[in-house]
C-alpha cells in the first residue's frame, strides 16, 4: 500500500484550475491518488485547499483540466453524480442536517445506493421495506463501528463538536466511496482527540479500502499519517513529496514563514 508507483492510480487529477473574476484561485493542480493512498493537502490560509475539494466534488466547476476516477471522467459532473461515482467529503465548517437524527443523517447518505422509487414509497411495497431495512442495518452498523450507536436517535445538532466531526466522516463513508476527502477533520479537537483521530483515519483507510485525501493545519498529524503531501500556496502547487521532502523544501518553508516552521505544528 505504501509504495505509490506499484498501486493503481484511482483518482487522477490533471492540471485543473479555476478563477473567480480575475483571481486565479487554483492553477494547474494535479494529483495522482492511488488505491488506498493517504495523501495530505496543506498550505497557508487562503491557499486554495478547500477550493480544490470543491473542484473535485463538483461544487465549483473547474475551468480547465481533467478529473478521472478509475478511468471514468468526472470533469463537468454535478456534485451528486460525483458522490455516486465514489468521491465523498466532509466539510471544514460542519454541515450536518441539524434537525435529522444521527441515524437519519447516515441513512440519507446510505440511500444513494439503496434506491426504491416513489411508487414503492407511497404503496409501501415489499421492495420498500427491504430497501429501508437494508439501509437501516447498514447505517446502524456504521454507527456501531464508530461507537455512536447510543446516540443514534438524537438530533445531529445535539451532539458534541467532536461527535459531530465523527458523524460527518461516518456520513461520508455511508455513500460507499472509493475516495474520501477530509477537510480539516482535526479542527477544534483537543490533543487527545487528535491522537485518536490520527489512528482512526488510518483504520478507516484499511477497513473501508478507501483512498484518503486530507486537508489539515495540524502539521504533526499530517506528517505523521500522510504518505505524500501536496503543498499549495496562492493556488499554485509549490511542492509535492513525502513528508520528509516537504519539510525540507525551501519554498514550503518560505510559504509558512512567520507562522513557524512546518513540522513543529
Amino acid at each position, binding site marked *: 500500500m505504501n509504495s505509490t508507483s506499484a498501486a493503481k492510480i484511482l483518482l487522477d487529477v490533471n492540471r485543473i484550475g479555476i478563477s*473567480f473574476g480575475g483571481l486565479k484561485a487554483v492553477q494547474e493542480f494535479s494529483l495522482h491518488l492511488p488505491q488506498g493512498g493517504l495523501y495530505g493537502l496543506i498550505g497557508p490560509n487562503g491557499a486554495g485547499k478547500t477550493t480544490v475539494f470543491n473542484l473535485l466534488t463538483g461544487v465549483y466547476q473547474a475551468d480547465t483540466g481533467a478529473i478521472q476516477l478509475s478511468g471514468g471522467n468526472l470533469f463537468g459532473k454535478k456534485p451528486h453524480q460525483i458522490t455516486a461515482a465514489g468521491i465523498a467529503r466532509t*466539510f471544514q465548517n460542519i454541515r450536518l442536517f441539524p434537525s435529522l437524527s444521527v441515524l437519519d443523517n447516515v441513512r440519507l447518505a446510505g440511500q444513494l445506493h439503496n434506491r426504491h422509487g416513489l411508487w414503492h414509497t407511497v404503496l409501501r411495497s415489499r421492495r420498500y421495506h427491504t430497501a429501508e431495512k437494508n439501509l437501516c442495518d447498514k447505517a446502524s452498523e456504521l454507527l456501531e463501528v464508530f461507537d455512536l450507536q447510543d446516540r443514534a436517535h438524537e438530533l445531529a445538532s445535539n451532539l458534541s463538536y467532536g461527535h459531530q466531526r465523527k458523524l460527518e466522516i461516518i456520513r461520508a463513508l455511508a455513500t460507499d466511496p472509493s475516495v474520501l476527502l477530509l477537510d480539516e477533520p482535526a479542527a477544534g479537537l483537543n490533543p487527545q482527540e487528535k491522537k485518536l483521530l490520527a489512528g482512526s483515519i488510518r483504520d478507516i483507510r484499511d477497513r473501508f479500502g478507501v483512498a484518503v485525501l486530507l486537508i489539515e493545519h495540524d502539521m504533526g498529524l499530517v506528517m505523521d499519517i500522510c504518505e505524500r503531501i501536496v503543498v499549495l500556496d496562492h493556488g499554485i502547487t509549490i511542492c509535492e513529496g513525502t513528508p520528509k521532502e516537504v519539510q525540507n523544501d525551501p519554498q514550503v518553508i518560505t510559504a509558512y514563514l512567520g507562522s513557524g516552521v512546518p513540522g513543529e505544528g
Partner: protein
Amino acid sequence: MSDFTQTLITAIAIGSLYALIALGYTMVYGILKFINFAHSDIVVLGAWSSYTFSNWLLKLIGVETKGMTTPPAIWVAVVVLVLSMAFCGVVGFTIERLAYRPLRRAPRLNVLITAIGVSLLLQNVGQLDQVFGASPQKMPQLLPAAELASFTFGEGESARKVVIGLVDVMIFVTASSLMLLMQYLVFHTKQGVAMRAVSYNTDTAALMGIPVDRVVSITFVLGSVLAAAAGFLYVMKYPSLNQPAHTIWVLLGLKAFVAAVIGGIGNVRGAVLGGFVIAFVEQFGAFYISTNYRDVYVFVMLILILLVRPGGLLGVTTREKV
C-alpha cells in the same frame, strides 16, 4: 406614430413610479437580504394618507371638496406630499423596530413570513371603517389638469394629437429628483458609505464601528418616504383610489419588486433601470399586443431575465461559500 409617442410618455411616467418603489425594495434587500413584502403597503399608505391629509387640509383652508372644479394652490399638493412622506417614514421606522429587528439573526424565510404578516396587517387594518374603509374613494384634484404641450401628427382626417400632461411631467420630475437625491446619498455621503458597508457585510461593518441598527432604520425610513411619494404621485395620475387590500396595489408592488429584481436586486441604479424596463414592456405590450395580459408580460419578462441572468441586469451572481 402618435400612438407610439403617447405610449412612450405614459411608460416614462409609470416607469419613474415603479423605479421609485423599486428603490425601497432594493435598498432593504441590499442591507437585510429579504423581500420587504410590506413595502407595497407603504405605497398604499402613502396614497391613502395623501387622500386623508388633502381632505383635512382643504377643509382647514375652507375649500369644499365636493364638486371642486379648480385645484387649490400648488402649495397644498406640496404640503400633502411632505406630510404623507413624513407619516410613512414614521410607520416604516416603527415596523422595522417592532417586527424585523428582533429577527435580525433569524433565518431569512422567517423574516419573509413576518413581512407577509406585516403586509396583511397593514392591508386589513387599512380596510377597517375606522381607518380608511373598505370602499374606493375619489382623490381630490390637487394638480391642474393642464396640458403642458401637445403635438399633432398627420394631417387632415388622420390627424392625432399627443398630449403631455402636467401630471406626467410632475411625476417624472419629482421621481427623478428623488432618485438623484438617493443616488447622491448612497454614493457621496458618509451615511451612504455606512449603508453600503452594512450591505456588504453586516458583521464587519459593526466591528468597524458602524451603528448597524441606525443604518437599517434610516434605510427603512428612506424606503418608506420614497414609497409614500410614489403613492402620492400614483393617486395624482389615477385619482380613483382603490381600497387598501385591492389586488391592484399588490400588483403595483409586485411589479416594482420585479423591477428591482430585473435590475439586479440590491443595486440602486438597477432598480431605476428595471422600473423603466418593466413600464416599457407593460405599456407597449398592452398597446401593441393586448391590454388584457399586461400583468402577464411583466412576469414572463421576469422569468426570462432570471433564467438568462440570475443576478439581474446590473447584478452579479454570488457563489455560496462552502
